[in-house]
């Protein structure tokens, strides 16, 4: 087999793998259950909650991650190497462990104080956003840093000789040049947050109509041996996720000139 063919076969194998998984759902698909599941108040709540928390978590990750990634890309400062290494923490540690760590944090004195005086996180929507934020932040910063690494420092220097302050140069030169990476980072963070389960269930629990995101709902249905319901929710998750990703790509792709 030629090199070209080998690589194409590998690509098709990826497709077959995921398509096979999706098609196997059809075996258990029951249209009536799907219809009622999609229409149920509880499911709609989960959809709204998932969209809302994932979007918040991804935006927060971008908000903190963008300046942090820029600093990691451009400056040498004490602690830089440690930050760089810790970014991998959410990838190494399983999401469930990360969620457990969050739960423990809110049970130790500082956490308890925060719970009592600032905001409640345990078993709340804020907790879910926090869990998803913590999970996706590392990857988001990694991707954002790569995006800034690709925007030439030289252009910032030129911008500054033309009279720009560092902030103005960043906003008018670096940011536009890194925008593809920024969009990619947001999309990935959002998608990862949407499907986040381990950390979410640890800190949010499984309260219907309160902290039940779509992945949690899938888990609950399966735990209740409701196979048709599980299939219906998985399909819903897949459709929403892919549609939203597609729409974001389209939208952001045309909003900025290539």
């Amino acid at each position, binding site marked *: 087999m030629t090199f070209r063919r080998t690589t194409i076969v590998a690509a098709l194998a990826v497709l077959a793998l995921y398509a096979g998984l999706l098609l196997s759902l059809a075996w258990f698909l029951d249209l009536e259950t799907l219809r009622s599941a999609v229409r149920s108040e509880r499911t709609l709540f989960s959809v709204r909650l998932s969209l809302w928390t994932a979007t918040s978590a991804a935006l927060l990750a971008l908000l903190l991650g963008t300046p942090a990634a820029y600093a990691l890309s451009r400056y040498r400062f004490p602690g830089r190497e440690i930050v760089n290494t810790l970014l991998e923490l959410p990838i190494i540690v399983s999401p469930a462990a990360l969620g457990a760590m969050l739960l423990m944090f809110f049970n130790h004195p500082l956490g308890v104080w925060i719970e009592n005086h600032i905001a409640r996180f345990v078993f709340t929507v804020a907790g879910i956003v926090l869990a998803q934020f913590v999970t996706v932040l590392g990857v988001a910063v990694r991707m954002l840093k790569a995006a800034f690494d690709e925007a030439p420092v030289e252009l910032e220097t030129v*911008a500054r*000789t033309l*009279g*720009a*302050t560092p902030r*103005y140069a960043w906003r008018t030169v670096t940011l536009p040049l890194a925008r593809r990476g920024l969009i990619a980072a947001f999309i990935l963070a959002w998608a990862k947050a949407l499907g986040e389960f381990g950390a979410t269930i640890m800190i949010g629990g499984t309260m219907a109509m309160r902290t039940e995101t779509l992945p949690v709902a899938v888990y609950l249905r399966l735990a209740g041996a409701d196979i048709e319901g599980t299939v219906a929710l998985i399909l819903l998750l897949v459709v929403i996720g892919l549609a939203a990703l597609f729409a974001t790509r389209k939208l952001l792709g045309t909003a900025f000139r290539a």
Partner: protein
Amino acid sequence: MLEIEKLTVEVGAFRLREVSLTVARGECHAVLGPSGAGKSTLLKAILGVLRPHGGRLRIAGEDAADVPIERRGLGYVPQNLGLFPHLTVRDNLAYSARARGLPPNEFQPVLDELVAATGIGTLLDRYPAELSGGERQRVGLVRALAGRPRALLLDEPFASLNESLRRELWWLLHELQRERELTVLLVTHDLAEAYVLAERVTVLFDGQVVQQGEKAEVYGRPAAPGVAEFFGVETLQPGRIVGVRDGLAVVQVGTAELTAVAASGCANEVLVSIRGEEVVLDRGGGPTSARNVLPARVVTVRPGSPLVCVELDAGFPLVALVTRAACEELDLRPGVEVTARVKAPSVHLIPRGGVVGDTGIAARPSPPD
């Protein structure tokens, strides 16, 4: 306009050591040196990107040590020109006014003039990627000049162009510089570029200034063997001063004796540097004003364009550059006996072993251990 005094900059293991140079208002000064000599490092320190570890930098009389890049009033064109790829030519040119929060028409008169002078008027709505190399160069220059900088810093801006385009842009820059009395600091490794554009030249080797002065002086009288080598001086032979006659030095080179105008205080051990253009060849011939008349034998003839390179044995290896017509007329072939004439002022002596001459010029330093 630019006064640099004993500037020391450290970047990793590289060190720029005590570089001093002054660029007067309206002057073009070239910093010349091979790659890795520290030319770009010097520019970055002047721009404010790198912080010097020692020395002083003054721009228009003010100490610039704590002045941020954007307030130094320096125009900068890097080697890759640094055009903003996401902005049209028009927006690239307007960037300076916008960044300073000025109304866009503030620089418009200057900009219009420059756009007309460089002929980029038809390119305003294009993106940098849609421009040719020469067009990009012009846009880069105009953009840097639009904000009326106090001095223009150029980092090998013509390096990526073909020969004819490069010459065209040299003259364009030369004209702009003359007309507008621009203060320009040009960094280059191209001798011809420095010669065309600059009045004064600083030669940088291994992070140190090895020679500085009027371009003709630097070109004709390299102060150190490394400089002569870098300039491509054709004949570079070790010699020894054996005496002084009528105020002229007599130098023993190989088995021949040469007369040279020596700077006082020159060491005995010298490197004899003779440019190929300065060697005149003839067959026999009568009396001459040239002090050095050497019987020589042609060793090889290498055809070149436009000059032919003739390698001779005149008691030491001597290279002459002659026109093709002269080469044919004299019937220069290997083995032919000719007479080589070199005027005493064209025999330049470079001290060997780090001796400083009376011109205050240091010889090439030994490389750091």
